[in-house]
């Protein structure tokens, strides 16, 4: 056995806190250690070449690199040693950066710890066994969850590369938040003009299977082979017959009586509806919560919708469908929700009718919105308008410490649009800091200022009402003066919070979430579209507050990672799985009870258990519990772990 040990300086990251020569000295001459070297940057080309050369020249059969976290560079070095002909599973890493030099302050202690860790890795490496990865076939299709702009972009990109793509959207139409806007910052493109064609492309794409009004119910399997169960909620309308003529909605007994989710509760709809005229698919849907027939079993003499529908598309007997699909990769693009400002009681949202949120105002601008695009708020055209920034963002008290990244700019956009529609309006933006970092954003900010929108630094303290008029109190922090402004419209620049579905989707896929509760990427800089779960990628605001350009860019990034995977015929399956010594197994079935994946299978004839290699994920739970000690957990065998324990104490 010949172990090569390489200690990395990581520039000064490690070398400043760990006395590397001392580590080298302590390790050289240890049992099995054939060579111990130090180097500035082990992951650089010269660093890797050094290892390759030593393997070739000295016939090393085990390599230990003491450097950063294995979560960072284990794959790199495994590839390096494999290059030189060594079995990659005989490679071992000691983490002396993240869990040593970066977190300790006493050089002597850190050095001692580094020595212990390297010794432990050497001991472990000496007991590592060569493993062979098996190949598993890849299912050449993908699932995209969420049909906002991010999900749409990802689905189109994957489908355009020639792979079958399932796009699942829980609402009756795709489009997400962007569909609710009239114009988009900073270019003031009409949202519908750029979004609708993409939506239509999705619907028509031969490679895309669009599943709207549907939810993911269950996911299992792993990279390359996920099995997904999808629930298709009944629309009570036959998709093959409905022509989208809309006569039913006109006729519905409840027309104009139910508040429309798409219009943020400002507009009204009937029990049969499309969320908006450009909806894709243009299929009507009956809302079972409200429809008289579905709820009470009776709608007048006969359902008006059914009476008027010529093609006979109404189907009250439609039932929930469950669809099973197999995919090789998954993109999560579940987007965001607007922060609900009810808890910021000082702003009076929900109490004063002329206090509204950013998303609500978006619907006011929309030509297909509740006011036909006219700036009418509760019946009148506002003249004194105050915008309040950072509502529900940068706010530690309510647990949302992050900046929502879009509100500064959408406030600028909305202020501009209002000014355009109401030229004599007095518009004031009370802001904390102005964050206009995107391409063209600062320029747009200047343009809005030039139009006469007053920007006053200092965020609003409270809103009160007197004689039916609102007043907003604030300090102009640049003047150092408190002041009050009358307002007939107060717009809250509400921030972004994760979609409430992030909980269930996250659990189904075992995704981690960052402190802000958005999905956690595998690495904040180097792997921003990956998750730690292989084969699952993130796109759009599901990963964190984002504007449309960033959402689209990330979606294309996620799609390219999906395609990278799907072009492969086969991928290597980790050989780090459990194995059973059938001679020792007593057939107690403990492992069967413990395994979350049904990997251990009982052989009725032999009265022992075998492991289904394709299913085992290698958690080691069974190995820890097997009373007869017959389970061998590859790469994490008892003796390998015990060897480490002995070295670190």
């Amino acid at each position, binding site marked *: 056995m010949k172990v090569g040990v390489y200690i990395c300086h990581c520039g000064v990251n490690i070398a400043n806190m760990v006395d590397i020569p001392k580590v080298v000295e302590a390790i050289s001459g240890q049992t099995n250690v054939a060579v111990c070297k130090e180097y500035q940057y082990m992951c650089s080309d010269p660093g890797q070449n050094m290892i390759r050369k030593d393997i070739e020249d000295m016939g090393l059969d085990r390599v230990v690199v003491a450097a950063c976290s294995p979560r960072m560079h284990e794959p790199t070095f495994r590839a390096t040693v494999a290059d030189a002909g060594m079995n990659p599973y005989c490679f071992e890493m000691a983490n002396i950066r993240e869990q040593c030099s970066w977190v300790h302050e006493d050089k002597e202690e850190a050095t001692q710890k580094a020595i212990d860790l390297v010794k432990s890795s050497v001991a472990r490496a000496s007991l590592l066994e060569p493993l062979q990865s098996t190949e598993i076939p890849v299912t050449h299709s993908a699932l995209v969850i969420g049909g906002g702009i991010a999900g749409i972009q990802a689905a189109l990109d994957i489908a355009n590369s020639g792979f079958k793509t399932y796009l699942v959207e829980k609402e009756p139409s795709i489009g997400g938040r962007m569909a609710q806007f009239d114009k988009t910052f900073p270019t003031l493109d009409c949202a519908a003009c750029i979004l609708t064609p993409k939506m239509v492309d999705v619907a028509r794409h031969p490679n895309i299977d669009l599943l709207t009004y549907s939810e993911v119910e269950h996911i299992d399997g792993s990279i390359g082979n996920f099995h997904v169960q999808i629930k298709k909620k009944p629309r009570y309308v036959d998709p093959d017959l409905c022509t989208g003529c809309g006569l039913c909605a006109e006729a519905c007994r409840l027309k104009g009586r139910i508040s429309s989710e798409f219009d943020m509760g400002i507009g009204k709809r009937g029990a049969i509806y499309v969320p908006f005229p450009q909806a894709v698919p243009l299929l009507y849907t009956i809302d079972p919560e409200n429809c008289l027939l579905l709820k009470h079993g009776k709608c007048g003499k006969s359902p008006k919708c059914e009476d008027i529908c010529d093609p006979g598309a109404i189907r009250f007997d439609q039932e929930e469908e469950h669809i099973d699909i197999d995919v090789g990769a998954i993109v999560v693009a579940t987007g965001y929700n607007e922060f609900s400002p009810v808890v910021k*009681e*000082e702003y009076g949202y929900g109490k004063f009718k002329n206090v509204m949120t950013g998303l609500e105002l978006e619907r006011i601008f929309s030509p297909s919105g509740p006011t036909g695009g006219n700036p009418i708020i509760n019946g009148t055209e506002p003249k004194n308008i105050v915008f309040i920034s950072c509502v529900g963002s940068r706010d530690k008290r309510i647990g949302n410490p992050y900046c929502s990244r879009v509100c500064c700019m959408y406030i600028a956009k909305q202020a501009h649009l209002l000014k355009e529609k109401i030229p004599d309006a007095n518009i004031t933006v009370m802001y904390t800091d102005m964050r206009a970092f995107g391409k063209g954003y600062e320029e747009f900010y200047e343009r809005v200022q030039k139009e006469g929108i007053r920007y006053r630094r200092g965020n609003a303290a409270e809103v*009160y009402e007197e004689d039916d008029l609102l007043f907003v109190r604030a300090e102009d922090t640049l003047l150092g003066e408190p002041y009050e402004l009358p307002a007939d419209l107060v717009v809250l620049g509400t921030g972004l919070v994760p979609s409430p579905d992030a909980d269930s989707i996250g659990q189904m896929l075992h995704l981690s979430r960052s402190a802000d509760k958005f999905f956690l990427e595998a690495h904040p800089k180097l792997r921003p579209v990956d998750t730690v779960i292989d084969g699952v990628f993130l796109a759009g605001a599901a990963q964190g507050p984002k504007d449309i350009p960033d959402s689209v860019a990330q979606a294309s990034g996620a799609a390219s990672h999906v395609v990278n995977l799907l072009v492969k015929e086969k991928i290597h399956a980790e050989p780090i799985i459990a194995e059973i010594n059938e001679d020792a197994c007593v057939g107690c079935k403990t492992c069967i009870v413990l395994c979350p994946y049904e990997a251990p299978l009982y052989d009725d004839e032999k009265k022992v258990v075998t492991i289904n290699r394709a299913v085992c994920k290698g958690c080691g739970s069974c190995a820890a519990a097997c009373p007869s000690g017959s389970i061998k957990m590859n790469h994490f065998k008892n003796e390998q772990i015990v060897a480490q324990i002995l070295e670190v104490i």
Partner: protein
Amino acid sequence: MKYAFFPGCIAKNVYPGIEKATRLVSAKLGIDLVDYEYSCCPPPGVIACYDKDSWLTLGARNLSLSEKDNHDIMTICAGCYGTLHNVWHTLKQDQDKMEFVNEHLSRIDTEYKGNIRPVHFVDLLSKMRDEIKQNKEIDLDFRVAVHYGCHYLKPSDVTGENSEAPKILDEIVSLLGCESVPFKDRLTCCGAGGGVMSGEPDLSLKIIDRKLKNIEKADVDCIINICSFCHMNFDQSQKKLHAYDIPVLHLNQLLGLAFGFKHKHLGLHTNLVSTRDIVKKVKGAKRESMK
């Protein structure tokens, strides 16, 4: 139900009607009050601002008195409540401060353990809605402006109250038949705290002037408070400003009226701002309820 009664110096020494009302009302509601040799809370404005550790120590001395008998302390003033509750809360969490306090208390052979907790009378009332209804003899249909008192509500992470939309007081006055009238800035400070009333009387008057103006606009019969200190400020400032004529009642006095006690027993006549109109209305209401 037994409570150590902490009247606080204003209710004892300036507006004794509040103390009296509390004793009468408590007896009716079946709350036994036990007296101890308390000092003043001490006031947050002057004492805490001068030396917080001394404030904690003097507050802890008060808490330690009824701790021996294991009685929680009941206060009737947002100031006293703020002090005692904050002292209790701070010492519960801060071992160092607790040691400091007990080191000093040991000089007078006293120890504070942190076992009992201070409550405000209004919190007891909110759990006695049925008893209040049973004891109510007169339906008072007053329009009232309620004033909570900052230190009852805030800081909310200590008090546990909803500081932007509290409801308790509004609910209790409505149990008595009164209407809590909304008015502008109803939750802002009366201007007395932090030593400002005594140290910068002009500033304090400006703050309460604004407040009174808003209340006057709301056209109410009286101001209802749960803080003897705010009570004093509301009553005295109207005279100092030579303006307004809005009677000021502590909630316990209002309860006393509803329970049928004579206004003189509740000390209403000792206010600076006349309570004559209130008394008249009560008499009218009484006749009404006799019918």
